[in-house]
Structures are given as C-alpha cells and as structure tokens.
C-alpha cells in the first residue's frame, strides 16, 4: 500500500514537469509580459525600461527563463503579482481559506443531502418518494451549475432575502468576533449549496442502487432470519457496506470542486482561488496565472491519485500494484 502510494507520488513528477512546460509556454504565448509589474511605473525612460528588462531576465533565451522560473517555483518563490504588486504566494494564501471553507461546506452539504435522500430511496425503492427523488436528481444533473447559481441568487438572495448575494463576509463586523464567523458562514452557505448540489444527484443514485443491491444479499437474509429489526439491518448492516464505495468518490470530487469553484466563486463574487484565477486571466497577471494553473493542476492530479488509493483502502479485493 505504502509502496504503491510512494510510487504513484513519484510518478506524478514527470507529469508535473510536462504540465509546467505547457504552462510556461502558454504564458509566453499570451500577449504582453509581466515586466510592467516589476518596474517603477512612473519612470518611462526607454533606457531604464531596457535596462530593467535585461536585469530581470526577460531577454534570456526561453529555456533559461523556464529554468529560472521553475527553480524559484519549487522553492516557493512564485514571483510578484503584476496587478497587486505583492508576492503571488501571499496573494494565494490570502484566498485559500475562503476556497477551503467553500469546498468543505459544499462537501458536507453533498454528503448530508445524499445520505438522507439515498437512504430513503434505497429503503423504499419504486415508491412515490423514490420516484420523486429520482426526478429531482434528474433535473439537478441536467441543470448547469451556473444556471443553478443564477436562479439561487435570484430566489434566495433577492426574492426571499435569506442570504447575501456577494462577498465572503460582512464588512461591518469586527474581525475575530463571534459575529464575524456567523457572517462568514452566512455568506458561504448559498455558493456551497449550489456547488454541493452538483454531485449530490450522482451520490444519491449510487447509494440508492447500492442499498437495493445489498438488501438482496445473504447476510441480510441471515440477519432477518435471526430476527434483527429491519431498521437496524438498514442503518447498521447495509449502510456500512454501502458507504464504502462512496468514499472513493471523494478523490474525483476534488477535481470537480476545482472546476466548480471557478464558476461558482465568480458568480457569487466570492473572493477565492477560482475568482483570483479568472481575474488573473483578464488582467494579464502572468505570475499569478502561472502559479494558480500549476496549483490547480497539482490538486487535480492529487485528487485522481487519492481516488485510486482510497479505492484500494476501502476494498481490499482490489490489488494495487
């Protein structure tokens, strides 16, 4: 197990190097460069600009530039944002807690909703309630996340006034106070609901089908024959077995959450990694753009790896080698 994980982790390195080359080439292909962010914007003397250009290495051959960038990158030096004039690392670190909060809340919502609906449907398959849940899930699968987000803002933020429609925290509350955390939760709930609802449908259907399948197995018949209450059979015997495959979804969710976060954060103007990424594209903030693309690629790879490893952990019959 450990050996497999280590080998897979090492296997990620060539992949990351390839991605870094692609990212670097793409950034160089984009119009303009990040020079203007590094120099004194008031000094427009062409000689000064040329000198700084030479000094900062913009005239070096591309392989040298790549090498300089990647050595700095692995040491945690992501460069300086041309837009905010602060190190990219600090910029990203400032937004990470917001995205993390959004992602974790979304996951919690997914699990709670999927469990309630999946267990109900699995226990009473082909009834009215089950069909209603299936229909609801079908629509949730079809409705694109950004359409769902727009409707959510319109209904819950504007018509019902239950949630704020933008930002991550009320600006009036004092940082660190109890109200501050309440306000943050209040702000994160609506985007998290939209983001979490995306994967709820597939989770629910999976759990339902697994419960139905398990309820026909021998161990359930044995338990019934011994007189175990139906409720206990479903909540203990079957559920334990049905949760296991669900765990593997976690890894894939990782990648889905990254894509989802870009859209959701932008629509809700929620200051997180996804929104920072889109802003860095529009404002041609290359150091930020490159660092974020690398980071998001790394997380996607990590998510896929996690899915594979979890697969082996929860089901010992699958040999990883």
């Amino acid at each position, binding site marked *: 197990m450990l050996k497999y994980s280590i080998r897979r982790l090492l296997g990620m390195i060539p992949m990351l190097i390839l991605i870094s080359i692609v990212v670097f080439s793409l950034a160089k292909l984009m119009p303009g460069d990040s020079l203007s962010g590094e120099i004194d914007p008031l000094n427009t003397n062409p000689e000064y600009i040329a000198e700084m250009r030479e000094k900062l290495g913009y005239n070096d051959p591309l392989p040298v530039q790549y090498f300089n960038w990647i050595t700095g990158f692995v040491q945690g030096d992501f460069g300086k944002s041309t837009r905010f004039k602060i190190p990219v690392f600090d910029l990203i670190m400032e937004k990470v807690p917001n995205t993390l909060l959004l992602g974790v809340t979304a996951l919690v919502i997914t699990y709670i909703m999927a469990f309630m609906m999946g267990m109900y449907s699995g226990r009473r398959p082909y009834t009215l309630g089950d069909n209603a849940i299936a229909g609801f899930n*079908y629509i949730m699968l079809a409705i694109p996340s950004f*359409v769902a987000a*727009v409707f959510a803002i319109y209904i819950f933020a504007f018509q019902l006034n239950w949630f704020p429609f933008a930002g991550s925290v009320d600006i009036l509350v004092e940082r660190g106070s109890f109200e501050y955390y309440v306000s943050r939760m209040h702000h994160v709930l609506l985007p998290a609901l939209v983001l979490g609802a995306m994967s709820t449908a597939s989770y629910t259907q999976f759990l339902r089908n697994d419960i139905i399948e398990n309820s026909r197995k021998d161990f359930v018949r044995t338990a019934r024959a011994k007189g175990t209450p139906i409720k206990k059979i479903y909540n203990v015997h079957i559920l334990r077995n049905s949760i296991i495959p669900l765990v593997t979804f976690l890894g894939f969710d990782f990648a889905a959450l990254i894509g989802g976060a*870009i859209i959701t954060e932008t*629509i809700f103007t929620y200051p997180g990694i996804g929104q920072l990424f889109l802003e860095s*594209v529009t404002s041609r903030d290359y150091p930020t753009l490159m660092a974020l*693309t690398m980071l*998001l690629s790394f997380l996607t790879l990590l998510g896929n790896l996690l899915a594979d490893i979890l697969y082996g952990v929860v089901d010992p019959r699958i040999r990883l080698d």
Partner: protein
Amino acid sequence: MASSTTITQQKKPERSLSPWQIARKKYLRNKMAMISTFFIILVTLMSFSAPFIAHLLSPLPDVSKVNIGAMSIEPNSDHLLGTDKSGRDVLTRLFYGGRISLLVGFSATVLVITFGTLVGALAGFFGGFIDSILMRFTDFVLNFPFLVFVIVLNTILFGIVDGLWVLIMVIGALSWGGVARLVRSKVLAEKENEYIMAALSIGCSPFKVITKHLLPNVVSTIIVQGTLIFATMIVIESALSYLGFGVPQATPSWGNMLSSANEPDVLQGKPWIWMPPAIIITLTILSINFIGEGLKDALNPKSLR
C-alpha cells in the same frame, strides 16, 4: 387438404427485424425520449430559421444593433419577451443564440468523437507500444484541469483565429480523453472474438478490420456517448460564454445572453432578460439527456422494453 393449406400459410417466410429496426421500435415507444426528440428538433428548426423569420418576431430584427430608444422594455405585444439593456429583442436573440450554441456544441462533439474514436481504436487494436504511447497521451490530457486550460488557451488564440472556431477547437482538443478510453476498452473486448481472427487470417488489412468489423460493433456505444457529450459541450459553451471566455460578446449565444445576469440590477429587477436563455439551456440539456438514455435503452439488446 385443409390442414396442408394452413401449413403452407404458416410457412410463409417472415423476415425477422434487423437490430436497427428493433432499436427504432424500442425508441419510438419511449415517451420521454420522443417528447425530447421533438423538442430538440423544434429548437433546431427555430434556431436555424432565425435569419428568415426574425422580421416576423419583432419590430427590431437586427440582433447586433443597439437601439437606444428601446432599452430594457418589459415583455409586451411588440416584444414578446422584452428587450435587453442594449435594446435588442430577447426572443430574436434567443433564436440567433440557439444557432451558435447548437453549432458550437455539435461541432465540438463531432471533433471529440472523431479524434477519441481514432485514438481509442488504434490503441485498442494494435496494443503494445502504440497502445502505451497513445494511452499515456490520453492520461496526460485527462489530468489537465479542463476549465483552467480552456480559459488560458482561448485567451491566447483569441484574435488569431475567428472566435467561434477557437472555442470549438480548444474544447474539442481537451475533452476527447474519455471517449478514447471508452472506445479502447470496447475494442479490446471485441477484438478477442473469432470473426476478427477470421478476417485477419484471410488477409484483411488492419484498416479494413477496424472500419468494417470493429467499429460497427462499438458504434452503438459511441452514439450514446456522443449524445451525452453533445449536452456537456452545450453546457461548456454557455458556461464559458457566461464567464466571458467563450464566444465573442457581440455574437448572441445562450451563454452570452445569460451573462447579463452578472449585473445585479438585471438579475434582480429584469428577469425577462436572463430567464429565457437559462430556461432554454436547461430544457435543451434535459432533453438531450433523455434522448441519450432512450438511445442507450434502445441500442442495448439486453433491455426488454
């Protein structure tokens, strides 16, 4: 005597249905799939007839012109769905937008299916070295965070090539991985059959074996997958356009129309501008999914409906 005539009558050769006829019968009996098919045909017809019927729909048939005198009009008898903030008729734009959204979705799907099938069939059929090279390449593409790279690539190529085709090529180039994997696994299973061996032993070229023997047997899977990809592509197009990284802003597409919901006052107070595209996108996706499910059922010889 009488009994012999009945026997000859019974013996009258009755042709059994071909697999495609069975599939068609099953599909025609599927209500949801049929309703969805009609809906999609209707949307397609309306979208592609937009230039011819635009002047019938509203007094402002030109979707690219800004009309200062007719900004943000609520739905009325002149403008059935109202006008947007630039004074353009929403209904007319909806028709024109469908053209772009369906075109982008369809072209990208064709691209993805063609390339994915090619890679998957080659990797599955030849195996060995070619297989591992092609599959490493596929893994590489699949491991990219899709949305991130589409946005970056689209920004680079924007302006070099016509906007619409950039989008089609970029989303096509980054999403064929899944199809390639699927086709490869199907081909791997299919090529173990004796008829492939027979075809090879009488000297059929690999090209002929793949196109004449292997692909017809995996085509049902590809069709079903293609339908679902079509839905995904429409979502991607509209999501990107919504974010401002898709079809150029001046071109009406469903995503571009929906992006007006980015302005809080439109979102809050002028729902007639953003609701029609939102609803039609959702209904289109829902219908395509139903069609996909219907095809899956119809083309599966084991399903008994």
